[in-house]
């Protein structure tokens, strides 16, 4: 076994931490011998746990510990490779690090799925993970990594663009909920409307984002030119206005469709009984139909929010701002680290939104809506 490990070890070590994109470095080239060996030992141990231990909790702990050790090792490598005071050198995690991160991430998600944690526990885990990452960033553990170097270069703009990203995604979602929910209820009450309305929204959904931005530029530009009040509100052919309008339009379909499906799913017997005992239509909607449809509606909102957080990125192309600015600047300058500075927070945002709304759906869906019942 030991011999096998010795033969196997260098092979892995050679691939681990190929640091600097232009100039790959092996693990042992950048870290002191003992640190490198320690990392290898932790990784091997984790691999052993992944293969040999069935208990989900232990697997999760092993995966998380390995992630932390790996992150610290990458940070240490960056520190070691960066000459004191040098701000030009860029040290980024290499392919092996990313690969390891993905494997460990899979191991951790798998373990969490197997543990079937309650919705509150999942949110708690998310908050803990974000807090740990945030603390490490605040302390400056990763300051010598290339992404953080890019952050340092854009430190003044980053919070603005982050906030703008959230605002664009959330604002268009809010508008879509305010319009989509009543539309969905209307569709449910007047089924004749349903076909044409959902059809129209479906067509909008098929237009590529960038094309929709383009289509909206002309009318919004014209509006701004003709109506000074609109221009004063910040409505222009480019910028945030077409972005918000486009995202709003994209958001409508999932929200209207899920509202209709959610309302249709409500037991007919319950609705019939609600009217039969003397509830007004408004009381039936508020007291029976909406509460029972809410889990499905929130699922729609989750889809929209995650979709919006991703799509706002493209809004940067038409001057809408947001984290996409970094992504497209990075692409323009072939600076992959700048792209990551935009992309990583976007992924984290989308993931967090998804986890939190999923948990909300589960909390709301505690009471099953009962088997569909028939009345003669």
């Amino acid at each position: 076994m030991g011999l096998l490990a010795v033969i196997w070890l260098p092979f892995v070590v050679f691939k681990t931490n190929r640091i600097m994109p232009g100039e790959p470095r092996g693990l042992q080239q950048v870290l002191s011998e003992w640190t490198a060996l320690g990392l290898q030992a932790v990784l091997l141990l984790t691999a052993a746990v992944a293969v040999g231990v069935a208990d989900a909790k232990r697997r999760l702990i092993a995966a998380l510990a390995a992630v932390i050790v790996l992150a610290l090792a990458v940070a240490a490598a960056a520190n070691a490779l960066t000459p004191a005071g040098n701000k030009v050198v860029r040290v980024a995690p290499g392919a092996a690090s990313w690969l390891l991160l993905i494997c460990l991430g899979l191991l951790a998600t798998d373990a969490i799925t197997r543990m079937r944690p309650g919705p509150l526990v999942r949110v708690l885990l998310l908050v803990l993970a974000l807090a740990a990452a945030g603390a490490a960033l605040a302390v400056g553990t990763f300051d010598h990594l290339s992404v953080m170097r890019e952050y340092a270069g854009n430190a003044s703009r980053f919070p603005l663009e982050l906030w703008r990203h959230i605002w664009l995604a959330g604002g268009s979602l809010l508008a879509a909920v305010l319009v989509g929910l009543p539309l969905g209820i209307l569709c449910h009450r007047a089924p004749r409307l349903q076909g044409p309305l959902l059809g129209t929204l479906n067509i909008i959904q098929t237009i590529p984002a960038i094309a929709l931005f383009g289509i909206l530029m002309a009318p919004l530009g014209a509006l701004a030119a003709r109506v000074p009040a609109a221009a004063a509100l910040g409505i222009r052919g480019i910028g945030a206005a077409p972005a918000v309008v486009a995202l709003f339009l994209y958001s409508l379909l999932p929200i209207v469709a899920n509202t209709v499906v959610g309302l249709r799913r409500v037991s007919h017997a319950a609705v019939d009984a609600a009217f039969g005992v003397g509830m007004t239509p408004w009381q039936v909607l508020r007291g029976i139909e909406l509460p029972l449809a809410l889990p499905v509606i929130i699922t729609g909102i989750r889809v929209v929010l995650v979709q919006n957080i991703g799509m706002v990125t493209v809004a940067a192309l038409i001057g809408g701002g947001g984290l996409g600015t970094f992504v497209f600047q990075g692409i323009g300058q072939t600076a992959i680290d700048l792209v990551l500075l935009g992309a990583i927070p976007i992924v984290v945002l989308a993931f967090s939104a998804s986890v939190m709304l999923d948990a909300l759906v589960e909390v709301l869906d505690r009471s099953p809506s009962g088997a569909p019942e028939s009345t003669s």
Partner: protein
Amino acid sequence: MIQIEGLTKQYGATTVVDAVSFNIERNSIAVIVGTSGSGKSTLLRMINRLVEPTAGRVLLDGADTRSEPAHLLRRRIGYAIQGHGLFPHRTVAENVATVPRLLGWPEERIRSRVQELLEIFQLDPGLYADALPHQLSGGQQQRVGVARALAAEPGVLLMDEPFGALDPIIRAKAQEDLLGIQRRFGTTMVLVTHDMDEAFRLGHRVAVMRQGQLLQYDRPAVLLTHPSDPFVARMTGLTDRAMKLLALTTAGEAALPGGSDGPCVASSASLRDVLSELLWSGAASALVLGEDGSPRGQLPVAAILARGRP
């Protein structure tokens, strides 16, 4: 008293209920029976205006039901349906309290009424008040459905196949309970079913419907002995109509003076059950006992057989 006058419902060119008129006496149970598509449910739903009639009117204690908003009318009329229609996200107590809440009863009165109803329907409030409907058995759910319908002490209770989803044994028990409730509160009940046995068992009067038309509305015995229409005769059953007729009379009603050394039967037992007992034991007559156990008279086979002829 419910007076139904020329009640008609048309959907486009289809007439679902066709000029139906009949009266339902206060404190009685009327059962509307018919095959599916006969318009019986629509007729019932026109009484509390869940369906608005195309023509005709319904008078409730002399007042036209259209003289007040539909939702206010419905709060005065109990309504229970097949598959109970309980609100799945509300507890049993909240379900039962629905109409009293709508009527704005004080919280204390609501609580004591819910408690009282759960006890009447044999649902221990300590166990079931805070349970969700899906945690209950089918029979319990059905009882909660009827309890909810009766919560605000309505004078009229409408029921659409209330026992349709129950298995035969639980259904018989539920029917028994319903008769008990009716005797206790004197509620006027209108019940829709496709089951003629259920209609005969529960109804003081039975309305037979076919294709939107009321064929006959009378006491069960009259439906058996004098069906107005071949369809009514078929619905009531041609092969065992004598046994059905016997089932409508109790031993107490048919008892003759005198004693008997045959088997003892309760005066509340139906003649059908007494005949069955006599066939089984081979005796020529039965001794009828009152509720206190004292002899009330005797019942010879011949007297029972005479009751089975129209």
